[in-house]
């Protein structure tokens, strides 16, 4: 009971009512996902205490932040909030913006100005005023400011949408580690599936103010009836342990439940645990393993379930090894041509492998 966030808010919006009552894990990243205007920002504002919902219950671990009868004002809630629009203080330069919350934190956090600004690539901007920054630079400063305020929970409203690919690629792993190092929960709003799959531990899908689905990412991905599996870039996660590094070809071999998967680059020492995302679109199924192709990863699987995702395509849930499951998306025609049915033993040829957080 204690290591949980209980988030319950009911508040009328313009066209519908935000009505959320969820319990999410108090560790890891919870991604809030949903169409534009569905109430994500409003929910974050409720949690931060910026929007006062009448009917509310908010518990962060054992602390009660809000109940119908009591209300902890925003400034006493230890949140780090990254707003959707860059919201730097125009009268303070970058350093002072960054330190604004830092100075006011009761205990000093584990992060230093130096570390954060280096990571976010804003060290050369420290003396600038906000009106001399580009959009992405502002957003990075805002992220740094929230991190430095030593929060107990991090609320991030599309923090990376203004950032370019490589900056994102640098910041995401850092954010991933962050919640481990600081062991604080992160509630993260994003539209980018790439951010979902690389960061999320837990997913909450919001639609018109209501929670339409929620659960751990791994389960949500495999639930063929849940909305995630219908997305064009559906996929699945499997646990993996580094088993070998081929120095010559710079390839790391992972042992996964039921086989091995090879990934470019030197990922980590042998024995390192990782999580791998397999994109459903990029898995093909074959009755025999191809051996004259460049497909590196071929895994023996068994069909568990076939679900028609659209009139043209099927999602196929596959058993991998003992305890793992993966998702493949194939055309209905291929299914018929290969006469696939539940229980068939096949080879999954995997092209779309990406490493994600543990």
């Amino acid at each position, binding site marked *: 009971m204690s290591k949980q966030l209980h988030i319950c808010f009911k508040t009328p919006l313009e066209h519908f009512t935000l009505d959320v009552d969820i319990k999410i894990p108090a560790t890891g990243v919870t991604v809030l996902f949903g169409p534009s205007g569905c109430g994500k920002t409003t929910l974050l504002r409720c949690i931060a205490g910026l929007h006062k919902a009448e009917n509310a219950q908010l518990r962060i671990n054992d602390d009660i932040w809000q109940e119908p009868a009591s209300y902890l004002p*925003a400034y006493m809630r230890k949140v780090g909030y990254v707003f959707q629009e860059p919201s730097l203080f*125009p*009268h303070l330069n970058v350093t002072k913006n960054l330190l604004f919350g830092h100075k006011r934190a009761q205990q000093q956090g584990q992060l230093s100005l130096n570390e954060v600004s280096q990571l976010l690539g804003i060290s050369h901007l420290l003396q600038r005023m906000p009106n001399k920054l580009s959009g992405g630079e502002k957003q990075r400063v805002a992220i740094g400011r929230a991190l430095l305020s030593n929060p107990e929970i991090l609320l991030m409203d599309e923090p990376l949408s203004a950032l370019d690919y490589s900056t994102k690629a640098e910041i995401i792993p850092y954010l991933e580690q962050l919640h481990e190092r600081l062991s604080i929960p992160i509630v993260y709003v994003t539209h980018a599936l790439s951010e979902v799959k690389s960061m999320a531990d837990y997913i909450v899908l919001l639609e018109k103010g209501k929670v339409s689905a929620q659960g751990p990412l791994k389960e949500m991905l495999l639930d063929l009836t849940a909305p995630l599996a219908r997305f064009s870039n559906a996929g699945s996660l499997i646990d993996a342990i580094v088993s070998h590094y081929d120095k010559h070809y710079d390839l790391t071999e992972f042992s996964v439940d039921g086989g091995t998967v090879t990934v470019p680059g030197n990922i980590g020492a042998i024995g390192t645990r990782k999580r791998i995302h397999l994109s459903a679109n990029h898995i093909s199924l074959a009755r025999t393993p191809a051996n004259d192709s460049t497909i590196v990863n071929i895994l023996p699987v068994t069909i568990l379930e076939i679900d028609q995702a659209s009139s043209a395509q099927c999602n196929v849930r596959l058993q991998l090894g003992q305890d793992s499951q993966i998702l493949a998306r194939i055309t209905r025609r291929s299914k018929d041509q290969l006469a696939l049915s539940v229980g068939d033993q096949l080879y999954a040829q995997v092209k779309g492998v990406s490493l994600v957080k543990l």
Partner: protein
Amino acid sequence: MLDAILLTLKLATLTTIILLIIGIPLAWWLARSRGLFKDTIATLVSMPLVLPPTVLGFYLLITLGPDSPLGNLLSSLFGGPLTFTFSGLVIGSVIFSLPFMVQPLRNTFESIGNRPLEVAATLRASPLDTFFSVVLPLSRNGLLTGSIMSFVHTLGEFGVVLMIGGNIPGETKVLSIAIYDFVESLEWAQAHLIAGGMLGFSFIVILSMTLLERNSRKVGDV
């Protein structure tokens, strides 16, 4: 004459400071709250402007004088009547110049909007802290305007001052009264001199305040 100059500066400075102390919270409250009550108060704040200064002074004289309960109360608090004293002058000037401080401040406060306050709250700044570290720095414009207008207006004010001050040299005879006296007693050369001095002095003070403010400010559009 030096008397009058010093007295005037003292009065204008003190009035401005007191107005800042009263005006800032009042303007903030007016800017942040809603409803008829606040609109009523907001309107009341402009009322000192409606009456001619001498008439306002007349009513202040009645209110602060020995015939009124308030006057008696204050009189016992301050150990003597407030009318015809410097303290009385300050009270009169403060009341008369109140709108000049409150209105610009309120507008500036309103133009800040909610977002900076929300951001400050998420960064653990208490409302008071936010006010000092965010709102006031963002309101330099209004603070400057309010202070300049109050200061200058107090310099030039004389109707109220004459009425409740009584033109007592060294205590309530400020420059504006002195120059008025000179004009009335046909000593125009003297009047020109003081008028020129006041104008020149205020001009330099205001201009340098403005320049200082501009220089120290690096904030542009957000």
